[in-house]
Each structure stands twice: as C-alpha cells, then as structure tokens.
C-alpha cells in the first residue's frame, strides 16, 4: 500500500467513517468515497489479476474506463459481480472481492501462468487444446479465466421503470463544453436535457478547477443549471448516456440514491456530445504493474477524495496536461519527478524535479512498481503516473454512424463534421483546453452572446506511440493481456485489419471496450504494417458505451410480465368451476377441470361424447371482412373458395403461405353478401389478418373491403355433444333450426347473439357468441342447463383428444413447415381451381408433386398411446424415418389408443403395419385413415 489519505483535501465526510472489507481485509473509508478512492487511500495496491496471465493489477483510472479494479461487491447479503470500483459509491458493510483470482488477488495461485507467457501469446488457443478433445480442457479454462462470480441467490428486482422523454437539445456531458452548450441553448429558450455520468456537473472542472468569466467555475455551473431548469429542461447526474439509436433516440441509465434505477429513452431534436476524453497510457516494459496509474486519475482522486496515489511519484508524459497534476501532488506533500519526452517544456512546477527529452523505458517491480528506468537511468519510486495523450470519447458519434479523422494537433481521432446527427465539442472533439472547450460548447448551443471566457494556454503535446523496438513486455490492453508483441504476431499472421486484430488478439474486447487500448493498438498496427492511422481504420462502435446491467434494460418485464398470455373474459368463471389453466396459442385457457389432469382429460372427453361438453372458444379469431370486395379478397387469400358460400352458411378452409405451406385453418362464416367472419386459430389471428391486409392493400381496391379484428369483443361458448340441443332448449335460447356449418344472428334477452353450427369435436356443436360483458350471464345459464343434463366443462386437453379422434388437424402440431393442403387430404381445390390464389403456384412444383410426400394418416397400435414425435419406420428397417407421430391419446370413447401421424406416402400405406421408434423403444402400429371415430360424420347432425 503506497496510497494515503490527505488530511484535508477531498469532498469526503471525515466525520463519517465507512467500514468495508477487501479480500477479507478490514478497511475503512469515508462517506463520499468510491470503492476506488477508499482502496487507493488505504487499501492494498493489488486489486485484481489480469485475464490471461494473472498478473497483478492495480487501480488505473477514474471512471467507466477503469480496466483493472473490477470487483465482486456484496452488500446487504446480495453479491453483484464485476463492479467497477471507480464508479461505485462506498457503503458501510460492503464486502469487496477481487475477481479472476484464487484465493484472492494478493495470493492468486494462477499467477504462475505468467511464467509460461512465451507459450501463451495471443491466439494460442486456436492452435492448442486439440489433444484429448476440447471438452477435456474447457471446464479447466472456464475455471481459470473469466471475471466475477454470479450469486445464484441474487435476483435483482424487476423494478427499473422505463421513462420516455423528448427534448430540444440533449447535451451529453456536463463538463465545461457541455455546460457552455447548455447555458447558451437555455438562454435561447430551448429545452435542454443535460446528462452526466458523474454524481455532479462540472466534468474535469471538478478536479482541475478553473475560472470562467473571472469567477470560480462553480458559479458558472450553478447559473447554467438554473437557466436550464428555468427553460423547462432537466439535469440528470449519475446518468450514463450509453446508446445512440436511429431517429434521434438515445438510451440512458440513471442511478438514483435509495431508489430504483431508471432506464431513460430520450428522443432529441438535436444532440451535443461533450463527453470529454480519456487519458492514454505510456508504453514501456512492464507498464501494467500496480502503482502505475493515469495522471488525470491521480488528480481526480486527490482533489475529490483526498486519496493520494503515492509518495515518491514519477510522472511520464509528452504534453502539458500533467503539469498541473504534478503541481498539485507536490503541494500535497509528494516527492514528484516529471519525465517529459519533449525537450522544450513549460517550467517545472515548484518543488519538483523535471527530466526533459527523456522517456520511461521500463518499470521495475515484482508485485508493484518500485522503480523505473528513464533512458538508462534508474529512478526509485513507489508510484508512476503516465499521460500518453488523450483519446476523445467519440463513441456515441460513431454509434450514430459518424466517421473519424486524425487530428494532428491533438493527436487524436475526432469526429468528422457532418457524418452524424451529433455535434461534438470540447475534449471529445480534440479541444483539450478550457477556453477552447467553452468556445466550442457555446457555439454548439447557438450562443448569440460572446462565449464564456477562461484564461488558459491550451495543452501542447507531442505524439507518442508504442515503440515496436522497445525491449520487454509492453501492454497495450491491460484488461485482456494484449501486448505489443501480440499485435506484431497478428500482423505477421495476416490479421492486419483492425477488425481481425481485435478478434485475433481480443484487444478492446474487455469491459473497458478498448477505451484504454484501441488507439494504441491501431497505432501499433499502423507502424507494423507501414500504414497511416487513417488507413488502418477503427473498429465499429456499438452500444452500450459502458456496461449496463441487464436488469436495467430488461426493466420490469420479468416473471409473469416477460411474455404474458392473453386472458379470457370468463377466466373468473372458469376458475370458480375448478379449471387449471395453461397457455395455448398465446392465451391462458382451461387445460382441464379438476385435480388430476390425466383423469380429468379422460372424464371430460367421455362426458362430451356421451352427454355434452361445454368449452370457451372465445380466443378463436373473429376477423370481419366487410365490403363489396370481401368475397374476392377471401378467394385470393384462401385455398378454398368462399365466394360461392351463401349468406348464413359456413365453410372450412385453409390459408396458405406463398410457398404453398398450410399457414392456418379455420371456418369462414358468411353473414351477408358483403360480410364474412374469418375464424382464425387463436394463435394465428394476427398473422391471418396481416396476410389479408397485405392483399387488401396491395392487390385489391382497399376502399371496397375492410378488416376488423373484433375477437376480443365477443365471448364465445360452445356446447357440443348428443345432448347439446336439449341443453340449449332448457337454457331458454331460441335457437334457429340451422344445419351444420351455418350461422345465424339473433338476440337473446335483447343482447346481440350469434349462433354458429360448427364443430371441432365431430359431435353436433353450437358456438354461442355474445358481447363479452354478457359472457358471465351466458356462462351461468349454460352451466345450470348443462349440469342438469350431465354435461361438464371441458378443457383444451380433452378438446384436443376429441378432435384427434376425428382426424381434425391442429396447425403446427399435425402440420409443419412443409405441409401442403393435399398432404392433409385436401387436394380438391388444388385440382379444380383455375383462378389465382395465394400460394397456388407453389402447389405445382416438382417438390409439391412428389408421390412420397408426408401425408396425414391415423395409427392404430396397442393400448399404450404412442409417444408423440416417435418416428415411423418401414418394417425391418432400423435407420430411415418415414415420418413421425404428431398427436397421440388414449380414447375413452373407443377404449383404445389413437394417433395421427405424417408419413411419407402415408395414404398408400393404409392397412399396412409399420414400426414406431422412440428413444430405443419400438412399437408396432397399423396405418389407418386419420378419422378413427364416426367416419361418416353422422354425429355432426345431432
């Protein structure tokens, strides 16, 4: 431990100590600390281990770019993995655990891997782990690599609300440039949203300080915030703007004190990106040792938290920015030596030594830095602060499609104007001085008055690059253990594109997403391949800018809210009758009534055949097709012609896909010459309506036919069975004497009442529909009348059994993605219709004409139901599947097992025996017609 707490500096509350542990070691900080500042001030240096070599790692940065101080944090009994110490507030009782280390960061036994580093360069795993098979190695590698551990008991609550917002101007970053933009825009009356990931506005002003318009910067910040609020805007701190999406849509993650997170979706007319810049490291041998930090981060921790990085500090740089850092550290009592690669430098701040025209070539130390070599000279130290320049945070500009150009003055890639809808200003645009940042921000906010003024001379710098000639191990990406040598290997092996470099070496693929490494990596590749940086290019920037908890994005849509089914209007009534529910086709429907499913299914099916079954058919689609063009539309969209249907009649048909595959089946009811109801399957209502709608708009005159999905308006109860007619009579319904496959509209107690004689069971059935608000009354009347006749409510499980007895298909269960209507025995329209209809042409392809297509048949076997999905084999054949069982039940009516199957050339096999195979078991079955019960359909007519 070389860091220490300054007695006075920092905005922490020294009256409120906060106790925590790190890797079991009790430590303390103060209220207002982050995990990083508390560890820097009083904790061990080694905070983690690198991903591959398990080298010791210490604190590097100040914000979301932190690559090393990644910790598992246990608080209030719950553990959150992979928390960045720099962005997490310290709380009393926190238990911090290093990651990727066993047993802990200080004593990690896998640190021995570093001794074998010569055999473990980038990409080594592509050439190894082949002997004995990959799965021998995979569990071991998984144990050794990776970051934090998941706490299986920690289920983050699904409590993050989404908040939608819109604004005139979204300013991302509340540093000097962002504040200037917000101030100018707010004074112009624009509604500004100012967003910053820090806990307070100010950006780098918070630790660098400065005067604006001759007064402390805090005055300017306060005035700006007031102006923003007065103009109807909003200021969000502790909020990361992490994603830029299409059409001016942006996503932000807000953390709130003692409240839930918030997931913001902000739609902005205009956007100013003032996200600042991230300091680059320097590249010398062993530049990854604990105790080597970003210069800017050291100042940040000193000023905001009073956490001093060390006592004997060497600062390596090639620019002006670290001079203020050096001065502050010297004033705080540190012994500081500045090593500036430039020969022509500003004067050395008071109280420190400066070495000009020199570079750090090597850091020394085993577990933390203890010395450096500066151009051959040995310097003892306990801390090294480095500044290799700054990389503008341009991610959001690039996410929005923007391009970058290399700016020689700032030696950085900055946004190319006009290539994204975002205007970038300040350090994010390569303007590193305070005056330039204020000026750019002010201009972006369309400030008419003069820009706020600051006195600074700007930051001069000389470009510094990784030197391929340097001896020793030089880290480019500390988080993923990518060295300069790895970049050379990638270039040698032909992976010279930055996209290949990234994937081959994993450079930039860690949680810091390359913020500390990408520029160096592409600069090194440029040198190695004799290209410019512009020619080498950059990788693609994608959201999120910083890791965002999935619980924030997922929000409240978990558990029941994840994919809730639709609900029946009569659900309470069914529950009162003892229904057990299950999801069918996106609806929650009664599966059976009673306690035991198997028993209930059999009893319900038996009762339905012997007396009557009552069931809720409300989810079946009711798409009204209305207008003089209705019949023409249905003829085109359907496989079975409906224009010849007379009003008052119903017809069963199919809807095909363009490929001729059966998409849905159902009954079409004709209420009038210009009015039909398409009764789509409950799961297909939406898609059927879309197919109809597309044809309506694209092929026909849309003013002559319209579609209304009124499924939810109606409650439909079906009475089916030999006693159905009697039940209806006793219930007091005046039921018109209509034949099977008919429909009538009438009234019941002056309530609109529709009766359709259609059957899904094969027994005489009446579907009764009333507006849903009267469904309860209908249910009560039928319940009473049905019970009196020994009928019972039946669930979907019994219903599926009943229809299977009749060979009625369920689309998606007895059909699949290749089933055509003639496979189901419905070849008539294919043969007879000459007019054009949707999917017609696909019905005559060579594939469609094959004789051995899978066809719907029945199977009769022993009294044990065949497993659904079991394969059909020819007798004596053990390898080639001829098809499979699609539906299988024990029929209480027939007192035997029944099944439906799709078998190659099935209809030609009727009467023959086949073998049925499933998971090592075989059964014998005979192929039959699909209909096992009442093949003549006599029961339909009651």
């Amino acid at each position: 431990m070389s860091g220490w707490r300054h007695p006075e500096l920092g905005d922490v509350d020294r009256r409120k100590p906060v106790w925590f542990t790190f890797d079991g070691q009790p430590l303390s900080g103060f209220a207002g600390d982050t995990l990083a500042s508390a560890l820097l001030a009083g904790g061990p240096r080694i905070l983690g281990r690198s991903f591959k070599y398990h080298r010791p790692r210490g604190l590097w940065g100040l914000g979301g770019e932190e690559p090393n101080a990644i910790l598992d944090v246990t608080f209030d009994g719950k553990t959150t993995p992979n928390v960045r110490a720099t962005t997490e507030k310290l709380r009393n009782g926190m238990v911090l655990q290093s990651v990727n280390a066993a047993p802990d960061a200080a004593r990690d036994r896998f640190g021995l891997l570093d001794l074998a580093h010569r055999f473990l360069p980038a990409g080594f795993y592509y050439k190894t782990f082949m002997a004995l098979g990959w799965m021998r190695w995979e569990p071991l590698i998984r144990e050794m690599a990776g970051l934090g551990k998941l706490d299986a008991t920690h289920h983050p609550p699904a409590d993050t609300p989404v908040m939608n917002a819109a604004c005139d101007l979204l300013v991302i970053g509340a540093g000097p440039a962002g504040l200037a933009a917000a101030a100018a825009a707010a004074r112009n009356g624009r509604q500004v949203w100012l967003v910053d990931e820090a806990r307070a506005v100010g950006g780098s002003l918070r630790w660098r300080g400065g005067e604006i318009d001759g007064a402390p910067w805090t005055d300017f910040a306060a005035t700006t915030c007031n102006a923003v609020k007065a103009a109807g805007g909003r200021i969000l701190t502790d909020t990361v703007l992490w994603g830029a999406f299409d059409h001016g849509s942006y996503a932000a993650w807000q953390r709130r004190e003692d409240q839930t997170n918030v997931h913001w979706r902000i739609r902005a007319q205009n956007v100013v990106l003032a996200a600042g810049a991230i300091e680059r490291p320097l590249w010398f041998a062993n530049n990854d040792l604990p105790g080597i930090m970003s210069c800017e981060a050291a100042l940040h921790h000193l000023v905001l938290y009073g956490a001093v990085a060390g006592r004997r500090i060497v600062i390596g740089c090639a620019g002006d920015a670290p001079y203020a850092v050096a001065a502050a550290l010297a004033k705080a009592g540190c012994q500081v030596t500045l090593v500036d690669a430039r020969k022509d430098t500003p004067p050395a701040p008071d109280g420190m030594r400066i070495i000009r025209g020199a570079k750090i070539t090597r850091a020394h130390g085993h577990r933390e830095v203890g010395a450096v070599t500066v151009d051959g000279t040995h310097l003892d130290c306990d801390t090294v602060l480095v500044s290799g320049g700054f990389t503008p945070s341009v991610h959001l500009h690039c996410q929005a499609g923007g391009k970058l150009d290399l700016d020689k003055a700032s030696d950085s890639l900055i946004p190319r104007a006009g290539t994204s809808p975002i205007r970038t200003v300040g350090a994010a645009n390569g303007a590193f001085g305070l005056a330039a940042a204020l000026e750019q921000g002010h201009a972006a906010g369309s400030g008419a008055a003069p820009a706020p003024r600051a006195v600074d001379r700007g930051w001069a710098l000389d470009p510094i690059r990784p030197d391929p000639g340097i001896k020793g191990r030089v880290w480019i990406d500390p988080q993923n253990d990518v060295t300069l040598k790895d970049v050379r290997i990638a270039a040698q092996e032909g992976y010279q594109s930055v996209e290949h470099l990234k994937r081959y070496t994993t450079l930039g693929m860690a949680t810091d997403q390359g913020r500390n490494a990408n520029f160096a990596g592409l600069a090194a590749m440029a040198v190695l391949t004799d290209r410019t940086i512009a020619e080498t290019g950059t990788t693609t920037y994608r959201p999120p800018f910083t890791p965002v908890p999935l619980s924030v994005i997922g929000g409240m849509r978990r558990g029941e809210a994840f994919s809730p089914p639709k609900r029946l209007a009569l659900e309470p009534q069914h529950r009162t009758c003892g229904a057990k529910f299950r999801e069918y086709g996106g609806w929650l429907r009664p599966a059976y009534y009673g306690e035991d499913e198997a028993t209930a299914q059999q009893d319900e099916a038996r009762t339905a055949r012997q007396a009557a079954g009552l069931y809720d058919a409300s989810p079946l689609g009711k798409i009204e097709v209305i207008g003089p063009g209705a019949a023409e539309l249905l003829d085109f969209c359907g496989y079975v012609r409906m224009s010849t249907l007379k009003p008052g009649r119903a017809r069963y048909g199919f809807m095909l896909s363009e490929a001729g595959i059966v998409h849905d089946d159902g009954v079409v009811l004709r209420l009038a010459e210009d009015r039909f109801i398409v009764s789509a399957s409950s799961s297909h209502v939406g898609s059927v309506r879309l197919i109809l709608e597309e044809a309506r708009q694209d092929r026909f005159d849309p003013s002559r036919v319209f579609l209304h999905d009124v499924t939810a308006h109606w409650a439909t109860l079906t009475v089916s069975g030999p006693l159905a007619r009697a039940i209806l009579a006793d219930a007091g319904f005046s039921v018109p004497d209509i034949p099977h496959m008919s429909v009538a509209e009438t009234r019941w107690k002056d309530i609109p009442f529709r009766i359709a004689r259609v059957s899904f069971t094969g027994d005489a059935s009446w579907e009764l529909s009333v507006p849903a608000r009267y469904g309860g009354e209908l249910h009560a009347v039928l319940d009473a009348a049905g019970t009196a006749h020994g009928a019972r409510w039946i669930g979907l499980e019994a219903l599926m059994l009943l229809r299977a007895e009749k060979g009625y298909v369920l689309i998606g269960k007895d059909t699949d993605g290749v089933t055509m209507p003639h496979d189901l025995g419905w070849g008539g329209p294919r043969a007879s219709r000459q007019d054009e209809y949707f999917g017609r042409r696909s019905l005559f392809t060579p594939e469609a004409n094959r004789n051995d297509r899978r066809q719907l048949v029945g199977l009769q076997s022993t009294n044990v139901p065949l497993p659904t999905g079991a394969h059909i084999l020819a007798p004596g054949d053990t390898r080639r599947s001829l098809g499979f069982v699609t539906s299988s039940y024990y029929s209480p009516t027939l007192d035997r097992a029944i099944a439906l199957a799709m078998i190659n050339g099935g209809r030609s096999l009727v009467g023959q025996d086949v073998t049925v195979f499933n998971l090592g078991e075989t059964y014998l079955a005979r192929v039959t017609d699909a209909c096992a019960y009442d093949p003549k359909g006599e029961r339909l007519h009651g």
Partner: protein
Amino acid sequence: MVERDWTTRTPEPGATLEAEGITIRCHRQDAATLVSGDLAAAIKELAPSAQMLGLLELLPGAPFALRIARDRALLCTRDPLASEGWYNGFAASAADDLYLEFVVTGQRAPEVVASCMSEQPGSRSAATLFAGYGALVARLPNGVSVRIQAPEAAAAWAHLANVIKVL
C-alpha cells in the same frame, strides 16, 4: 408440464390502483363501433356530433371518435349503434367490449404516461404502444384515458401496478 401460476387478473370495471399523486381506475366503455373507410361519412351517418381525435387530444363527452389509422377509427357512443356491416363507403363492426379503459389521474399522472409511452406530439392517430401494449390514448382534463384491448388488460394493469410503486 407445470402450469405457471399467473397471479395477475383482468381488472374489473371500478378497480383502482393508487399511489401518491396517482390514481388509475378501470372502466368499461359504454359502447363503441369500429369503422373503416370513409370516416367522415361514417361519423355523419352514425354519430354526426362526434369529433375525430388523435393522440392525447382532449376527450369531449361521447360521442367521439378515436382515430386508429388513416381509414379506421373507434367511434365511442353512449349507447350501442344498431348497425353493423357495409355502408356506402365504410364498414362498421360492434366493438363495445374490445377495449377496457384505464383512466390515469393525479398530479403525477404525467410520470406514469412518460413511463408507458413515448412522446409523439401531433400524431393524428390515437393508437400507440402503452406499456408495450397497443392502446388508444387520449387526454382528460386531469389525466389521460388509455384504451387497452381486453385480453391484454391484465398484463397492462399489472405493469401499471408495478410502475407506480417505483416512480
């Protein structure tokens, strides 16, 4: 297969959710008709005094029409309209029970609205996604009216109950 225990329920008309500054009440529509086609002709024929409303426009008393698409609207009336089917230039279908109405009121009602839908100023269609569900949204003097299709009302109601706990 284990049945999932769906604890949410479709709210009954009159059911209420409350939190500080927020009240959400479930209502059943009086009567409604889906009309498509020549909407002006439809209104003239079926409810001549009805005003056509877009997103978040102020609801007058019935009758009024909530525009859904260029050629579709939900005509809301006090009593059911007797006629369905094809007229000259437009189609009509009974839709009294197609939607349930959630009325959100209170000084924090705007936060509920912000949580459930994005701003689409000036949209001529009252149809939008509200809490992820298709809805027709209009403004009231002290809040908003949200019509959600009845089968999805349980899920939307449960979502609102969770939202008002954390806002």
